[in-house]
């Protein structure tokens, strides 16, 4: 019983994934569209992480691209430095097919490493700064993002200002399933006692603390999880894009991610997914007119503030109508899943 819901969702996701494969093999999904779809996955993961920090826990962070670049550089550095050697050794030992499969595991490990390094930086940044309130935290996180970018621009071992080339080894399949895994993990987190502890900080920090919630611990936890997701997204980005450059992770990128979360609804998972899709599609559609992007974003935000001041979804989730009520006409209060 407990797992039926997951199995249904898994089957739906599998069907969707199979459909994309069929369509792209038949030529209905172009390479450009597939690239957009990978980017959508990357930004969904980014937006999920920031939503956990800002939407659910209420801590304004504007340096999320900084964590993304840390994950991208950590994963990219491992893949570009050891990738060729690992690949050659595996092919020699196991043959081309099995060696290739194990090499893929190596690539996944670099992604995990990127996520962990970024999460560690999340803790390092969070511990001293999360005592700051509102505006000060925002300024500290902007500063963090810029410092990371400038350090990377000046680190010769990581390519400095000419960027770091990384072999292409992650495509739609990996991006899609890792995105799905991230959504499930974060959905489970926010719909649990620990997630509610984070939300209580957003709602009323003094009351949360007075009810026995260690607010610092949960802020740092949200920061670490959010930063880890950004690191994961960065790793996917690095292994997909052939080349990473510090300036791809600038303040504007952090801002765009914040816009995705705000647009979708702070504190709504389906909302931030929607926001990531809308923003990525729009960015790619306007890629020939980069100067138009900021204008469109501004207009979008103004329109939203007028018509839906809490974002497309507010704090609510998009649900399938038949899941809404449990037996007896009331939603299950005692928590099934």
């Amino acid at each position: 019983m407990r797992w039926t819901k997951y199995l249904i969702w898994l089957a739906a996701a599998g069907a969707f994934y199979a459909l994309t494969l069929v369509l792209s093999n038949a030529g209905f999904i172009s390479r450009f569209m597939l690239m957009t779809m990978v980017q959508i996955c990357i930004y969904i993961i980014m937006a999920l992480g920031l939503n956990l920090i800002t939407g659910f826990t209420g801590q304004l962070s504007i340096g999320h691209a900084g964590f993304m670049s840390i994950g991208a550089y950590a994963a990219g550095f491992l893949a570009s430095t050891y990738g060729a050697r690992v690949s050659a050794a595996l092919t020699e030992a196991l043959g081309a097919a099995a060696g290739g499969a194990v090499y893929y595991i190596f690539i996944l490990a670099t992604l995990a490493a990127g996520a962990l390094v970024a999460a560690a930086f999340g803790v390092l940044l969070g511990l001293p700064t999360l005592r700051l309130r509102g505006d000060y935290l925002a300024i500290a996180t902007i500063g963090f993002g810029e410092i990371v970018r400038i350090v990377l621009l000046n680190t010769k071992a990581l390519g400095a200002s000419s960027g770091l080339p990384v072999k292409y080894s992650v495509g739609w399949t990996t991006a899609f399933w890792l995105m799905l895994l991230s959504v499930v993990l974060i959905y489970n987190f926010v719909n649990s006692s620990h997630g509610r502890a984070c939300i209580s900080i957003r709602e009323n920090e003094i009351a949360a603390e007075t009810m026995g919630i260690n607010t610092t611990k949960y802020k740092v936890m949200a920061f670490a999880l959010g930063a880890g997701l950004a690191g994961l997204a960065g790793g996917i980005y690095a292994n997909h894009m052939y080349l990473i450059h510090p300036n791809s992770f600038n303040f504007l990128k952090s801002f765009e991610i914040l816009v995705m979360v705000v647009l979708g609804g702070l504190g709504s998972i389906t909302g931030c997914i929607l926001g990531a899709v809308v923003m990525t599609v729009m960015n790619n559609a306007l890629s020939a007119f980069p100067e138009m992007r900021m204008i469109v974003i501004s207009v979008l935000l103004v329109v939203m503030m007028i018509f839906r001041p809490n974002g497309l979804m507010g704090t609510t989730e998009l649900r399938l109508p038949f899941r809404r009520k449990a037996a007896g006409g009331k939603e299950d209060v005692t928590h099934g899943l």
Partner: protein
Amino acid sequence: MASEEKLFLSIENLSQSFSGLKAVANFSMQMEEGELVGLIGPNGAGKTTIFNLLTGIYAPTEGSIIFRGQKLNGLPAYKVAQRGLARTFQNIRLFADLSVVDNVKIAYHQHVTHTALSSMLRLPGHFKNEKIMGDKALELLKVFQLEDKALEQAKNLPYGQQRRLEIARAMATEPKLLLLDEPAAGMNPQETRELMDLIRWLRETYKLTILLIEHDMALVMGVCERVYVLEYGMLLTVGTPDEVRGDQRVIDAYLGEEAP
């Protein structure tokens, strides 16, 4: 008074200044386990400040707070709560956008034993604890006659019910000492009477010790065994409701206000 080590709560020479203003000055009080004590005084006397000091929201400028043999001052508020002190707020501080039942569940969080990871992976520990938590929360809501509002947003409750929900939430932390800051404020006489009964009932049922701030003198005199009277941050007098009611200094302090 009982001997030192038997004391449930002992406050010694507590002082708190806000940039020169002495909100609480040299305040001392003792409570025994199971007592129901009132804390009264005119507006701005420092009553809420004492609650904020007790619950770790402020660190006292001077003095000490010993609760069941352990020093409380200097501890962060969440640790004070985990030692068994819970409170309500004069200006209601619910988790306004969350459901009534989630408000209560959050207060129960300190008792859960499963990790965040087991929730993310939906391991058995998550289901077990969430079930216990859900059951306890509903049980409490039943006591406070809020169970049919369980899924409503806290901010949508009428005022009196919000006050009740605040007490329910405080009870979910499973406290030994409950601090109520003007629980009857904004209630009509009927609601106030029900609240009096509820406070007595809670105390009997959960073996609670209660410290009550209240301007409604009928309520204070009706339920409290001893009353501390505060004026300008200092202790004016302490005694049974009858002693306090007849004290000329108390009458003077309240002059111009509702006489006790």
